[in-house]
């Protein structure tokens, strides 16, 4: 029997040479006369160890990493095909401390299977959720999702079951499932990893959603910065269709459901669900005023479920194992698991699926190992470019929707970006405004004009030009953005700006909040 060797095809692994490593393993195996079966799996999420090469031995996998092309010959010399000792040997993957402490529900298969092998998917509990859904009434499927406590993973945290129930209750000749894979937040890559590592899971989740609410067509809107995810999803959909899991009779049932994948075009705002729908319709990604909600009047004016990749990918587990199995994890109103993404200046960056409730400090230090540069941590941005900056003193805040919100932040899509003490927080605040100006769709004035004025005002503050008057103006402008913007781009841009001002006033050279300074 040939040895099974795994080298990830995830874009992050490719970015540090996984293709070169795979080619070198093939070359070396041929030269040495070894018969190997090299499988391109998804990523295990321990991205700091990529390319992570695994060898299957007696049903368990031994991990070596990070492997470079130059290491491959040495790995063969060390007999790595039989788990031989080598300086890159990490041990059995599942026993690695950072892997063992995770609760992999949504990412259970990611990194284990060949992403485009339907047989692999089915062997690893794939399509069991759909089988169960086919035995239930639509209302019972929706109830199961509602009872699981699943909340939208895109950032808003809206209960998925309630959204589905609204669409189920609408009468229309056509309804849609739209998957929001426009994962634009810096510091997040969970959607990308899932789509590249376990695409059938998303397809199954969307299919269940379609059956639950009575939709026969689904669209996945993927950002153009994710060409690998786009190709993998397209290929997986073609396979699912050929195998009868998509099409006129899903898995031999009377239900019809099909999926098409669409590419974004570099507009951050299209992650906002109504802008995404406009874009899918072939228009500018300009947001729509609400109401009506997309659940009532969405894509082409039809009732539409718009869910994030991770929300939909959690559904197969919930249907397969039951709502209670999902809801038993987590804290408070944040049920299930949270794929925490550690990014930026962090030693052990990657995706770690953990129950809600872990503190920022535990995530950054126990899991992430502190900063990559080894310098002291100064700021942490949670939840993407619209999320707040947290100082060291707030690191004991648990990662939970409500706890982060209580500190005037947002959990968003679960991204955590770490900065060391070389960061200039006035510059970061300026960037937040500038980013809003670059990405504003232009529909509402506060965001369109306010972001440009905000950038100018911060420039004046930094230049010490009428600093106190301009700080006051900036506060005022932020209030306006919060209260009067049509969507969260303008509405949340004040989060990073004001948190930088609140927690790092020294970078703006202003007195700390609450202390008085005389205006002269």
């Amino acid at each position, binding site marked *: 029997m040939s040895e099974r060797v795994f080298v990830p095809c995830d874009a992050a692994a490719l*970015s540090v040479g996984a293709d070169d490593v795979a080619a070198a393993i093939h070359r070396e195996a041929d030269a040495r006369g070894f018969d190997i079966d090299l499988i391109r799996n998804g990523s295990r999420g321990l991205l*700091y160890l990529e390319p992570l090469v695994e060898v299957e031995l007696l049903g368990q996998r031994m991990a070596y990493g990070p492997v470079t092309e130059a290491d491959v010959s040495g790995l063969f010399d060390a007999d790595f095909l039989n788990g031989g000792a080598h300086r890159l040997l990490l041990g059995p993957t599942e026993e690695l401390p950072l892997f063992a402490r995770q609760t992999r529900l949504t990412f259970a298969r990611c990194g284990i299977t060949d992403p485009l092998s339907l047989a692999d998917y089915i062997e690893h509990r794939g399509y069991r959720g759909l089988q169960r859904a086919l035995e239930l009434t639509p209302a019972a499927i929706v109830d199961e999702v509602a009872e699981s406590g699943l909340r939208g993973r895109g950032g808003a945290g809206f209960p998925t079951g309630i959204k589905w129930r609204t669409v189920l209750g609408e009468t229309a000749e056509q309804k849609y499932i739209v998957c929001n894979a426009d994962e634009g937040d810096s510091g997040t890559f969970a959607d990308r990893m899932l789509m590249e590592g376990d695409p059938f899971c998303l397809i199954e989740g969307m299919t269940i959603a379609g059956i639950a609410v009575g939709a026969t067509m689904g669209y996945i809107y993927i950002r153009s*910065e994710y060409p690998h995810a786009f190709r993998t999803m397209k290929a997986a959909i073609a396979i699912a269709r050929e195998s009868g899991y998509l099409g006129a009779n899903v898995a031999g049932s009377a239900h019809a459901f099909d999926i098409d994948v669409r590419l974004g075009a570099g507009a951050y705002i299209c992650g906002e669900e109504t802008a995404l729908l406009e874009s899918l319709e072939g228009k500018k990604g300009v947001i729509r005023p609400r109401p009506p909600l997309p659940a009532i009047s969405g894509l082409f004016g039809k009732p539409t479920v718009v869910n994030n990749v991770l929300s939909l990918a959690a559904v197969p587990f919930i249907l397969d194992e039951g709502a209670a199995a999902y809801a038993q994890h987590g804290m408070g109103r944040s049920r299930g698991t949270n794929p925490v993404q550690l990014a930026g200046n962090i030693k052990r*960056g990657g995706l770690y699926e953990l129950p809600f409730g872990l503190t920022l400090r535990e995530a950054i230090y126990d899991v992430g190992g502190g900063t990559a540069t080894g310098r002291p941590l100064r700021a942490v941005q949670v939840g993407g470019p619209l999320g707040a900056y947290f100082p060291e003193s707030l690191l004991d805040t648990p990662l939970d929707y409500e706890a982060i919100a209580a500190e005037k932040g947002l959990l968003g899509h679960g991204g955590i970006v770490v900065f060391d003490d070389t960061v200039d927080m006035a510059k970061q605040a300026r960037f937040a405004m500038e*980013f809003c100006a670059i990405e504003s769709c232009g529909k509402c004035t506060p965001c369109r004009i306010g972001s440009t004025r905000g950038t100018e005002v911060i420039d004046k503050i930094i230049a010490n030009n009428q600093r106190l008057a301009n700080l006051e103006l900036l506060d005022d402008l932020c209030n306006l953005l919060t209260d009067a913007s049509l969507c969260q781009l303008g509405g949340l841009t004040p989060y990073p700006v004001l948190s930088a001002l609140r927690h790092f006033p020294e970078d703006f050279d202003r007195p700390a909040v609450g202390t008085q300074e005389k205006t002269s």
Partner: protein
Amino acid sequence: MTTHAPWDYDRALHLVREHQHVTGALLPILHALLDEFGYIDSRVIHDVAEALNLSRAEVVGVINFYHDFRQSPPGRHVLLVCRAEACQSMGCETLFDQLRSRLAVENGGTSADGAVTLESVYCLGNCALSPAIMWDGHLYGRMSPDRALALVGQATS
């Protein structure tokens, strides 16, 4: 090297026809043109508008709205540098500045020899291995200024 075809009106028209019947066809058509030629040539806008029963202004509006839809041909190589927060925390601004001065271009510009187009991008989704760049569609992580300059050097020499 990017593999863009030189402008060919008949080919462009063919691409428009090929995609005009899918739902919400405008973005798929523009992507097909972008893939083929590396930019959206103004000479095809009239045909796109006609195929979709839109005004030319609507089509131009969409092209202008999205950052991807370049309106002039790019260089032989396209270099995207991620300048979002995670990459900022690992020094992408220094990386970007060095590339900008090496190529003597501003953001979005193409070097005088036509070799490289330099563009900022806000997140390549490789945030655990920052800084990230994309060179002709290939993603690179943990990119140092030296390695990036070497890539550019090979292309421009």
